[in-house]
């Protein structure tokens, strides 16, 4: 896109409208949060929230603080660690289930029975089982992404046009060839989409796990992470930091999803031409 | 099909409305960017009640013309009039969709969540000028005329695609349109069903004379159905050859093997093939 096109898009009616709505939202927030200060009457709900200006001040302070960035680092580590583990186990499992009907018949029902159990319900069992707290968080994180990835791989494999496979067979492809050159690339788009969704779930689980175990009765533990940051801010009474933490996680989540999308785009260039 | 059909049923003398005048229409997509000219100074005059077949290779801009008449797209310049009234033109680049020009879509647009009868009654019910009883009575009788009795309470997804097409046409006719716009409606049907659909369409036409603007790439379909063929050049779209089809109405399947039919096919074939070759070479994506 040329420069003029870019600025056109930036200041297009759509973007301006979006910014306008967010602006109004911020104004309401500020006014509501400062209602007690300014009007002597505290608005319900919104009156208890720290105002955006305070949050901003707090944030500028935190940017210089290394432990803030340490939290980022810890959370990212956990998220990508758990996510990678889920991919390493989930993608082959999903593909194998897609190819082998008997295995699917055996494994899928058990998979489906376990799936409705929310990952967080596994936390106590996980703590009992794994020796360290870090591993127990990692396991729960893994579970969160695992289900989504497997479901998406299966969905993608199922929707492969049978005629692709038939065409390959008639051209003399071996089983391995067909897998490598048709099944795998054809499932890639679903894997990419599944990853984006799975990433969201992973963040949820990590944050929750960090809050529960870090802030729970188990004390220090592995420590750190943005979830723990939020919880300790709450316990410590610095409410502005809570919101800083919330927004930080939001941004972090968005960045990881974008990264995945770009990566996915590189792996599946043919989708761009649609 | 009733055995009693008037003589001279192909005459257009008794049709008073539905004349379309397309004058010098130009449509350029993305004028500041890629500037793709889809329609190039196209002028066509369609008299009221005529079945006008627009033939051309895929992607040559025929649908753009149809969309302009229907009011789904705007035009860059030129004008389109219906019975003398301006549909779109200088100062009014896009027509407003209305029930005087109803489209029958390529993949069918019957509402899957309504029964066939509800679909057919939809137009008049929305407009709200008549009572529900009146509307549904008329709907039922029109369905009977088209041989659709018995399927009133089925959903479109439950019946064959041929039947769906007929329901869609009846749905359009309920609003007494002046023009019916067909956008390759039989493209997705197998040739067996197609032949039956053609006869059914003519049958319906003989009962309700409307102007028909029919886009197709199937020459046989075009000559069988139409009063006139307009063969379009490949993108940009412009009338290349106009042919009168002087086979008398009412027509039936036996027309397909008549010598006159063969003659017309030969005449049209070369022109169409030339344009199809051009479109193929240009690697056009189907419209």
């Amino acid at each position, binding site marked *: 896109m040329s420069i003029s096109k870019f600025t056109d898009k930036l200041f297009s009616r759509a973007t301006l409208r*979006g*910014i306008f*709505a*967010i602006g109004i939202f911020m104004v309401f927030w500020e006014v509501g949060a400062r209602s007690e200060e300014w009007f002597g009457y505290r608005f319900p*709900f*919104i009156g208890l929230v720290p105002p955006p200006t305070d949050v901003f001040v707090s944030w500028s302070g935190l940017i210089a603080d290394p432990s803030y960035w340490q939290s980022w680092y810890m959370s990212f580590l956990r998220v990508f660690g758990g996510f990678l583990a889920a991919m390493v186990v989930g993608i082959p499992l999903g593909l194998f289930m897609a190819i082998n009907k008997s295995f699917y*018949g*055996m494994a899928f*029902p*058990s998979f489906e029975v376990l799936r*409705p*159990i*929310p990952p*967080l*319900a*596994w936390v*106590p*069992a996980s703590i*009992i089982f*794994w020796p360290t707290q870090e591993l127990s968080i990692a396991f729960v994180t893994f579970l969160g992404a695992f289900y989504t990835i497997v479901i998406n791989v299966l969905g993608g494999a199922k929707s492969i046009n049978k005629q692709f496979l038939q065409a390959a067979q008639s051209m003399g492809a071996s089983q391995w060839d067909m897998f490598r050159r048709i099944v795998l690339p054809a499932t890639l788009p679903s894997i990419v989409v599944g990853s984006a969704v799975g990433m*969201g779930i992973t963040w949820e689980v990590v944050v929750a796990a960090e809050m*529960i175990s870090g802030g729970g*009765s188990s004390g220090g533990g592995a420590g750190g992470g943005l*979830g723990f940051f*939020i919880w300790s*801010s709450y316990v410590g009474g610095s409410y502005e930091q809570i*919101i800083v*933490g*919330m927004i930080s*996680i939001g*941004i972090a989540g968005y960045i990881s999803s974008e990264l995945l999308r770009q990566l996915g785009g590189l792996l599946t260039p043919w989708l761009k031409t649609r | 099909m009733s*055995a009693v059909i008037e003589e001279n049923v192909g005459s257009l003398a008794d049709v008073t409305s539905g004349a379309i005048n397309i004058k010098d229409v130009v449509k350029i997509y993305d004028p500041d960017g890629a500037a793709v000219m889809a329609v190039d100074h196209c002028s066509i005059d369609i008299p009221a009640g005529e079945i006008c077949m627009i033939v051309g290779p895929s992607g040559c801009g025929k649908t753009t013309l149809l969309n302009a008449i229907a009011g789904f797209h705007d035009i860059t310049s030129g004008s389109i009039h219906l019975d003398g009234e301006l549909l779109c033109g200088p100062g009014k680049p896009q027509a407003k*969709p209305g*029930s005087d*020009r109803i489209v029958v*879509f390529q*993949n069918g*647009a019957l509402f*899957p*969540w309504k029964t066939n009868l509800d679909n057919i009654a939809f137009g*008049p019910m*929305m*407009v709200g000028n008549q009572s529900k009883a009146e509307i549904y009575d008329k709907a039922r009788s029109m369905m009977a005329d088209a041989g659709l009795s*018995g*399927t009133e*309470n*089925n*959903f479109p*997804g*439950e*019946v*064959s695609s*041929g039947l769906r097409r007929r329901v869609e046409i009846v749905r*359009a006719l309920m609003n007494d349109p002046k023009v019916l716009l067909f956008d390759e409606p039989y493209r997705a049907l197998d*040739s*067996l069903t197609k*032949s*039956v659909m053609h*006869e059914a369409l003519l049958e319906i036409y003989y009962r309700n004379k409307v102007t028909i603007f029919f886009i197709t790439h199937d020459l046989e379909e075009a000559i069988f159905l139409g009063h006139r063929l307009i063969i379009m050049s490949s993108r940009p779209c412009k009338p290349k050859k106009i042919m009168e089809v002087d086979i008398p109405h009412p027509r*039936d399947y036996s027309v397909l093997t008549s010598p006159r039919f063969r003659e017309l096919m030969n005449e049209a074939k070369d022109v169409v093939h030339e344009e199809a070759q051009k479109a193929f070479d240009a690697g056009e994506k189907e419209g």
Partner: protein
Amino acid sequence: MDQLVDLLKSAMPFRMVPDNLIRDIAGICTQHSFAAGENIYNLGDTADDVYIVSSGSVQHILGVDSGTSQHEKTMRSGDIFGWAAVLEGQNTRLAATSSKEPTEVIRINGKELTRLFKTDPAVGDVVMTRFATMINKEFYVPRTISDQVPGFKQALVAKSLQGSEVTTMALTVYRISTWLKSPRPYLMLIGFAFVLGFWYLSVEVWKLPRFVDMPGPTEVFTEWFSEDPYYGLSIYTPEYYKHIGISLQRIAFAFFLATGLGVPLGLFLGWSKSFREFIFPLFEVLRPIPVLAWVPLAIIIFSGSETPVIFLTFLASFFATTLNTMLGVESIDESYSRAAYCLGASRWQTFIHVVIPGAMPYIFTGLQISIGVAWFSLVAGEMVSGQYGLGYLINTAYMMIEYPKIIIGMITLGVVGYTTSAMVRMMGDYLMQWRVRELALGDN
């Protein structure tokens, strides 16, 4: 044989039948000869065969009541008569026929022909329609007669649906019976056996180091189903149901609130470009924040321990529902709303009659996701704050070192979660009968 095939093909109704079927028809044909002036059949005779003239000529006199005068017609090579044999509800001849000169005919048994067409209903449909057309065009018969030509696909479809409604129940029963006949249920049991077996073996038999503190299946199941459980929780204790009930209550409240707000919001976001340009960015800024990150803020804002939990559940559900509804509206084929405009509907009418029903399938998929997400948040919320509920149960069981209760809680969660999701799906099937029927009939 080839001559027979050619003759068949020259008869109007059979003209477009594919070759393999024509050969089958030729196979059931029989040939007959008649001398000049010989009677072929009379009015009122049993109508069993359809006739096609091979050579010669046949005099055909229609003698149908109800006002039409007798009509005489001469049939020649390639002409079909005796079509009463394919009319539903017509067992007797409608005409008298005799040969005018030495004539050869082929006869096709009506019932056999019908049977053949059942193997390819699409073709049968076309042939029968052509029969009807031919009868109407070439013979002067009242409409009531030609209406008796059975249409195959329509008849098959209409018969199966008139009167008997394809309900979800009928569909389920059908699906279950097919399922039982396949290897699937047995594979499923093998899979379960594996999982349970592994659990059992690793905890109770091999006593693997990692699994030392884990409760084994025997412990869990005896506890769960005992009348006097050691830790006080089993299917016989009212407390068990209290936890389930409270969780369900919270889910129901949050879910319905989220649906009530999220669906309309999603619909408008999808439908109105202006509205979307204003509101969607704001929505997308708030959505990435994990719902659980709202916990401390929720505790601050809302007093009590109940409201924050419900708020969190609501929030998760709300985002999922709104987004999926919006995507649903965007996925509706443009042709539907265009068709509505053509037919005279206003923007608002199109919204009600096209957008809302059209988005329903997507909305319900979204609702299933939404309820899954709701459970996710609810459990987290219950673990952190709140009294009672399945999440609370699991957490306290952990704290009090009553480990079997953890597993009981987890399994219960799975079952209840699955049931609520299935209920949403069934509600969707109920509201979208058209979809159920469409899918039931396979591809058309």
